[in-house]
């Protein structure tokens, strides 16, 4: 067993691009679900419209990179409005149904061959990130501390990504201590009470949905830029569910919950992956029990077990307040 590799690979995952992407997706869900109580099960769609807005803008229409970023953000806002208008007046579960359906509709639509000219079908789109890496301040090479290192392109994506995470956390912090955030939290508790106190609940829910969606779309940008391509199937429903796992792991309605949740989530996934692989290749786990092709599935079984343990022993998540959970039991 090569423990150096196990640890360096795990730490790279914990602060790497996946952690950034999922932190942003989870911050968005935290605004919607954690603070406002909106069950948006279509966060993958918000990430996807962001990524596709950028990719289609540059690669298909030949527009300026920054203009295409704006198209991505505008698409996320538009998606939130389209989903919100019919559903936000209804009970919370309708939003869940509509958003998960919308996410799948979007994914399946962009992968059909009918729109191949625009979206690239199942192959997706490439070559839209040039302008982003043109302004990369890192020279060619590897950067890092000890065995943990990233190449110059990844470093640039990570720098921008973690700055975006910090900005989003700051905005969430400022908003949630304000009267605006108080209205959101009150809506989560009982929206009729909030209505009776003279607040336009629909408008606040819409603002929350848009804000969470736009933050998710930033995650989509980072996803697209880090891989240099967008493909429809990387925005499957499990992306949303991973993000929910992260929110619950970190503690819902806590500013830093999604950040810590994402870091631990990816650390755990990569760590268990490495341990299993090395144990198999070293012969500690015989091939009759499992082989390396099954590692991918088994590590998610472990994630599931970890989640169960979390819900049993620390239902409020890492940062959550135990008193709040106790209130639910009353």
């Amino acid at each position, binding site marked *: 067993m090569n423990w150096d590799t196990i640890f360096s690979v795990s730490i790279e995952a914990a602060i790497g691009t996946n952690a950034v992407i999922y932190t942003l997706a989870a911050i968005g869900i935290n605004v919607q679900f954690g603070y406002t109580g909106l069950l948006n099960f279509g966060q993958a769609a918000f990430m996807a419209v962001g990524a596709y807005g950028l990719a289609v803008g540059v690669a298909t229409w030949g527009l300026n990179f920054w203009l295409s970023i704006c198209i991505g953000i505008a698409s996320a806002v538009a998606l939130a409005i389209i989903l919100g208008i019919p559903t936000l007046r209804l009970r919370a579960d309708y939003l869940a149904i509509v958003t998960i359906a919308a996410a799948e509709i979007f994914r399946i639509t962009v992968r059909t061959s009918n729109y191949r000219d625009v979206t690239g079908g199942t192959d997706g789109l490439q070559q839209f990130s040039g302008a982003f890496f043109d302004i990369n301040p890192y020279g060619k090479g590897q950067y890092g501390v000890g065995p943990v290192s990233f190449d110059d392109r990844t470093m640039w994506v990570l720098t921008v990504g973690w700055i975006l995470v910090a900005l989003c956390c700051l905005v969430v912090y400022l908003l949630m201590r304000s009267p*605006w955030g108080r209205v959101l939290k*009150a809506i989560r508790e*009982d929206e009729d009470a909030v209505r*009776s*106190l*003279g607040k336009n609940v629909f408008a606040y829910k819409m603002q929350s949905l848009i804000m969470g969606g736009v933050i998710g779309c930033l995650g989509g940008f980072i996803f697209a830029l880090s891989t240099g391509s967008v493909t429809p199937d990387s925005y499957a429903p499990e992306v949303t569910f991973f993000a929910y796992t992260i929110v619950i792991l970190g503690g819902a309605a806590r500013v830093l919950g999604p950040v810590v949740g994402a870091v631990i989530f990816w650390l755990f996934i990569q760590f268990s992956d490495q341990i299993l692989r090395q144990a198999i290749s070293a012969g500690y786990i015989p091939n009759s029990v499992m082989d390396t092709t099954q590692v991918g599935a088994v590590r998610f079984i472990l994630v599931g077990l970890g989640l169960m343990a979390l819900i049993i022993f620390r239902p409020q998540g890492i940062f959550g307040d135990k008193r709040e959970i106790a*209130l639910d039991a009353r």
Partner: protein
Amino acid sequence: MHAEETVSAADAALSGDREAAARAALATVDPVPGAAKPDPILVADRVMRRFGGLTAVDVEHVEVQRGSITALIGPNGAGKTTLFNLLTGFDDANEGHWTFNGDRITGLPPYRLARRGMVRTFQLTKALAKLSVIENMRLGAQAQRGERFLAALIASIWQPQESEITERADQLLERFKLDRMRDEFAGELSGGQRKLLEMARALMVGPELVMLDEPMAGVNPALTQSLLRHVKSLRDDGMTVLFVEHDMDMVCDISDWVIVMAQGAIVAEGPPEKVMVNETVIDAYLGSHHDTPLSEAEEEEQLAEAEAELREEIIEAEQERA
């Protein structure tokens, strides 16, 4: 009693005795269903709400006198809460229109009505459990600068107003004896304290008309007295109170005027002493044959009905506790 009635409404208002003023103003009103009031704050006409084949509310005309405590009573299922929901925009009427302060408010969403000064509470208390008591209170304040998305980001824009709101909230908490619980989660309050919090929070809106849906339901007798005093103090502060209740004794104690509903319609109106002895009201509560001998079959039927009602109340009480 007699001396009170001879005092004119204006004199009483000047002397600050709002109870006498309200009583005097209503003394001239004919105690019949749909009676016109000298200075109505809320007027509703031909309000109809059907649920499938059932007509839950069918009110021809009703007025609520400004500055009075008006009780809306009736047996279970009379349509009191449904009428409340219609008037406050929480439910849509099939027919009818109503005005508040002379302005037509039919079909306006609840939040607009609250902004106009018409605030309601709920039968099943809606304390916002995971917000602290003081945050619950602050939420009630209107026209908050910090409730706009961009302004919320910059604390210096809303901080001064927030301090004013907090000061007002603290005063109200003291008045409702909730100041000790200020920083606790509202979910940790007892049932009675939640009722008090809901009432205090409604006052943060700065309402003209406070509509209380069964403020005494599920509250222990000791706290009931304190709640009654608080309801009276709302009128004494110049607000109009309309409240739903089905316990007649409680109603007599505090209300200036009583409106009785049965099977969706208003069957009687009048000052509490008169309504208590009104034949129609007694019939509505006890059934029209309560003073004639029953056949055995009728007796059984009424017994079953009474038991069903009792069961319903127990279930209600359990829901309240949950």
